[in-house]
């Protein structure tokens, strides 16, 4: 780029050149990357039979159902079950728990973990388990820190949930994932979830002691 950011040569009014139909067609196709199948499936249009009131009513109900499901699937509406949303979120990012054991060299750098946790409205210090995955994720309408730490048998998912209040420990037990959503004295909660058989008590205690919400 030069300081002068304006075209001085000939060109059409929209940047396209004449006689470039093949190039434009290829460019258009190239930009249209495939949208993941799960999302494409949600774009299917319902086809109600307008002459039947029952069908119209069913169509409306279907639309409402799809809307709610869509909003829930993408993290901007809770399903009503915090535990269910935690497991759904783990399913949503299967790559995070794909590798059963990692070496120290594969751990996420502490600075990166801190940055993500901070952006998720928290601070965390001196946590012992190796963090093998860290990402800021939309969850029930908030951006939260999603960590995966090394457990004894495999990956353990930790979600830091400053906006989620629970009255007491909430058990998670769905689809082979077990764990607990634990309320913290400072408010909010943490979800610690592993696969069946994983001892989670120690990780849960360490995270609960190490986490602080950002003011």
């Amino acid at each position, binding site marked *: 780029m030069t300081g002068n950011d304006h075209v001085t040569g000939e*060109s059409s009014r929209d940047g396209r050149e004449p006689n470039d139909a093949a190039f434009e067609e290829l460019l258009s196709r190239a930009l249209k990357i495939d949208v993941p199948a799960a999302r494409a499936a949600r774009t299917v249009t319902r086809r109600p039979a307008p002459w039947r009131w029952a069908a119209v009513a069913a169509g409306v109900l279907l639309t409402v159902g799809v809307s709610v499901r869509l909003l829930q699937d993408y993290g901007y509406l809770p399903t009503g079950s915090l535990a269910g949303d935690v497991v759904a979120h783990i399913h949503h990012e299967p790559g995070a728990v794909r590798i059963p054991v990692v070496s120290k060299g594969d751990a996420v750098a502490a600075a990166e973990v801190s940055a993500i946790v901070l952006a998720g409205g928290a601070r965390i210090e001196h946590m012992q388990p190796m963090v093998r995955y860290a990402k800021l994720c939309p969850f029930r309408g908030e951006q939260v820190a999603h960590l995966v730490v090394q457990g004894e048998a495999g990956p353990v998912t930790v979600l830091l949930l400053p906006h989620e209040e629970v009255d007491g420990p909430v058990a998670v037990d769905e689809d082979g994932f077990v764990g607990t959503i634990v309320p913290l004295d400072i408010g909010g909660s943490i979800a610690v979830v592993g696969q069946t058989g994983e001892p989670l008590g120690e990780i849960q205690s360490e995270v609960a002691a190490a986490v602080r919400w950002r003011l």
Partner: protein
Amino acid sequence: MTGKISHLERRRRFDALVRELRPELYRYAFWLSRSRSVADDVVQEALLRAWKAFGDLRETGSTKQWLVTIVRREHARLYERKRFDTVDITDYEEEIAATSDDDPDLGKMRQAIFRLDDAYREPLALQVLLGHTTREIAELTDLNEATVLTRLHRARHRLKLEMGIEPEDGPGDGS
């Protein structure tokens, strides 16, 4: 009762809108970020914000541009300022290659677009993918129309060079 109907109607309209526009928004977010996972997150967050503000939207004709603006803002907010995810060109080239069909030119073009500077790639996506006019792109990106036109022109020029097509009008970037 009226309130419930109104809420359901709003939800129905929003759902229809999302079903229609989500693929385009996802593609736009992908070309902004060059990452499928980032695109997914950006669109999710953008739709959340859109849903919250949907009741206040009066002009349905401008809905698409409104959503594009939200996606752009969310991308900037979440992934430009904070820069949590670094762009690994090798990963994304693999990602693009995996989505290309058997047409070698298509894969080559996608990689060429991928390598474009952000300043060139975004207006191109807005124009070709979303059908924005030069003026609309200028308004969205806070540039003047002449600059947008220049960037569109140079983007195509660079793509042609990468594709082995001889541009008709010289070097294209003043060099």
